[in-house]
């Protein structure tokens, strides 16, 4: 009862309130309230994640498992960021309330939090994603083979998109007169044809499929047909 039935009822009630509010303005305030709780719980989920990070890394350090030093570095950086962010260390006072320290802004590099974001988190995430450029190119070189029509279409489109976005694309096709029959072969026209005609059509069909899948899954959850989401305590 406590572990299965009540959670299912809570799930169904939360979902139904949201659906009803779409059709009836009477339940609109209910849905706003539920969404507000959802946002708060999403915020608490981040705290839960941080707690889990602490637990996992502390266990790794205490048991001196291989790589425990990295766990210590993770905890130190986590703690340092948390302290400067919660204390708003070095924050710029709010012009309206300069006497309330915690009302200040910590977006600029003047504040410890802003400094850590600008010089630690931002370059690290950007570089991590930039690193993928090498691996995507490497994987494409190894895996892509123009063996059949489908592969040729994929490769050809990728080549066109990559070419038309750099100066070489314009350089190679700018000699084609804009008012000629072959103007569609100019770099900007090729890009427009690929993205606005073919890619749009493909993405529309994919989005329609995703929407149907999302709606079906949501209904299964709300009606209690799919109970797998609540199966693990």
């Amino acid at each position, binding site marked *: 009862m406590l*572990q299965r039935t*009540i*959670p299912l009822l*809570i*799930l*169904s009630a939360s979902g139904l*309130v*949201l659906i009803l509010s*779409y059709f009836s303005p009477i339940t609109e305030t209910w*849905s706003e309230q*539920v*969404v507000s*709780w959802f946002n*708060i719980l*999403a*915020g608490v*989920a981040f705290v*839960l*994640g*941080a707690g889990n990070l602490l637990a996992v890394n502390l266990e790794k350090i205490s048991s*001196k498992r291989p790589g*425990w*030093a990295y766990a210590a*570095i*993770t905890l130190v950086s986590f703690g*340092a960021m948390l302290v400067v*962010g*919660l204390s708003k260390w070095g924050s710029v*006072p709010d012009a*309206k*309330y300069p006497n309330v320290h*915690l*009302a200040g802004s910590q977006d*600029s590099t003047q504040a410890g939090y802003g400094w850590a974001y600008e*010089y*630690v988190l931002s*370059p*690290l995430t*950007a*570089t991590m994603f*930039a690193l993928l*450029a090498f691996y995507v190119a490497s994987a*494409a070189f190894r895996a892509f083979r123009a063996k059949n029509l489908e*592969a040729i279409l*994929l*490769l050809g*489109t*990728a080549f066109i*998109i990559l070419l038309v976005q750099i100066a070489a694309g314009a350089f190679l096709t700018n000699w084609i007169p804009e008012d000629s029959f072959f103007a569609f072969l100019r770099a900007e026209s090729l890009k427009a*044809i690929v993205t606005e*005609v073919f890619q749009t*059509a*493909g993405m*529309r069909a*994919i989005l*329609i499929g995703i*929407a*149907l899948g999302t*709606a079906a899954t949501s209904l299964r959850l*709300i009606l209690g047909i799919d109970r797998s989401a609540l199966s693990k305590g």
Partner: protein
Amino acid sequence: MSSEGMQQSGGAPKSDTRLWIALLIFGAVGIFAGKVWRPGPLAEAYVEVVTETRVLAEAVAPPAAQPALAAPSGSMGANAPLPGASTSEDSSPTRVWVESNDPRFQSGELRRVEGVAPEVWDERSRVDPKKAKEQIATLEGDAERLSEPTDPTGLTQEEFEAREAARITALKAVESTRIVASPRDSIGIWVAALLTLGIFSFLVRDNPFYKVVESILIGVSAAYWMLVAFWSTLVPDLFAKLAPDLVRATMLPGLVESEHPGKDFLLALIPLALGVMLLWRLAPRGAWIAVWPLAVVIGTFAGMRLTASIEADFMAQIAATMKPLVAFTPGSLEGVVDGSVSGAVDGVSYATSAQGFDLGGTLAGVLGVVGVITVLVYFFFSLEHKGLVGKTARVGVWFLMITFGAAFGFTVMGRITLLVGRFDFLFNDWLGLSP
């Protein structure tokens, strides 16, 4: 720190000689090139410092005339009325922090609150090093020029006084603008550069330098998202309802007083209880308690997505597809001749010339509809892909391949743009190699 502590369970290689040599060579060449090419310190950073001063003031007018606190037109936002800080019932006037030279002091609308020290702080904003040096030179030149007293020769007393006043005002403005080197930001650039190199070192192989940087990323990232949730959601949506006076006094002084504080408090107890239940997952026993808040999260998300996906994705995409298949070029307002179209829309009359057939637009429209239908047929697995269905699905696959090819191209370009950004940072911001 023991070597075991720096090893992963998978067993990282002990020697990364090649990696370190490569990094050392890269660093040495970069620093040498920077020194030769463009002499000057590495990781130069400058900031413009603006000193802000606020004093506590209160309205001279009685509470009934509180509009006196409204900001004068064209004044800064800092002088705006104080939200949520309405006059209290003991008729004490509203107090606001304003600039020390607020014109309302002169007009007598405001007076300073005695015994409260002014709040003074510096606001620093990054300035491009090249522009900063130019600005510093200009400011120094201006200060030198303006420090010379006005030559009174040939001037009347009024003209002399006016020029002197203007000179002193300009001199004060120049002196109040400070562009200074910022060691804090220079250290930041160094840190960012080393961290960037740490991530790039993974290109050679997995190594301790990369693992240290990766650990920093995990720790800082987890704390960042927790802080975002704390300041943007938990404080205003939860704590402000549970303890509004405390939150107003310490974190959100602009918090508007609720019309139903008791109801808000009781309603906030529900997410508080659910939040505690969610955190119970960390406890060694009774993890099932966390299923209740999870049910709220899943149910709410399912409800939101159900309506949103049907309306914004399903219906909107179908509506966008249902366009006229035959396209015409837009008519011209000039040269309206026979066959022209005329009428009125919202009371505004119009007349356009005959429209022409648009081959490109028609082909695009037809291909768009064919693409959507054939891809949908491909995704329809209830029918076996044979015969007409199979051929249609095959055309759908061609559209999908073009779609994926374009997505791949854009993804690669996005990553390369990020890569260029990182190299730009290393070579220009850190090594200062830009000419």
